[in-house]
């Protein structure tokens, strides 16, 4: 199987890859958002201390 064939997904590329792409984005967001929130929490708490 060539690289092009793999990405063509037998003609269903337009359905398969957006599924995987959106899943990746949502799963990443669920990790990134709480990590950012934690950083923000420490930043704000420090500000209130001063």
């Amino acid at each position, binding site marked *: *199987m060539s690289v092009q064939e*793999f990405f063509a*997904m*037998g*003609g*269903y590329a337009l*359905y*398969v890859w*957006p*599924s*995987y792409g*959106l*899943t990746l984005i*949502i*799963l990443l*967001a*669920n*990790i990134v958002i*709480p*990590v950012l*929130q*934690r950083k923000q*929490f*420490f930043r704000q*708490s*420090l500000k209130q*201390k001063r």
Partner: protein
Amino acid sequence: MPWLVVIFLLLTAAGLYGGLYLAPADYQQGDSYRIIYIHVPSAWMSLFIYVVMAIAGAIGLVWRIKLAEIVAVSSAPIGASFTFIALFTGSLWGKPMWGTWWVWDARLTSELILLFLYLGVIGLYGAIDDKRVASRAAAILALVGVVNIPIIHYSVEWWNTLHQGPTVTKMDKPSIHVSMLIPLLLMALSFNVYYLIALIQRVRVELLQRERNSQWVKAMVLENKQ
């Protein structure tokens, strides 16, 4: 934590390699069926996380355990995400196979209701300032919504639907070939590990915010200064 991420990445890599590359195309659906490797595990997770959320909520209600309350509310956004993924990927799979993005049949509608239940839990929790009261209200809503879980599971057997019936959890032999089943189970495992990782991240933030006036959080803030 880092080793959890390593396990997650290994499982995902193996699952995707098996599912997208090694497994053959489906004899009826061609390569479009490869959406199964995220669609089905996401749908399983959407149910599993809901049950975890409801149980944690019940433990919080009965024994007033703070950590249980936090696990319950922290699970909601992750469960909602998986529900949305299941609906979205199902739509992208339905279009080429059924000829439509959406039908108002039992399986799809009950899964959509599940999304609204998750959003309801998130909204209710966010709307009440006292987080202990908010947790209790959210837990009650989550518990009421548990009725929906068996409905989703059995919807393809109870009602006529475009959605295909179960192929993995059938009582006799699963009607899915082992070359497709193994990557599917690997992805299901990977999503479970992912849930654990995402849950820990959310629980940490929620715990900090709730305990912001406690000594240990204040000490942590000061330590972080350096």
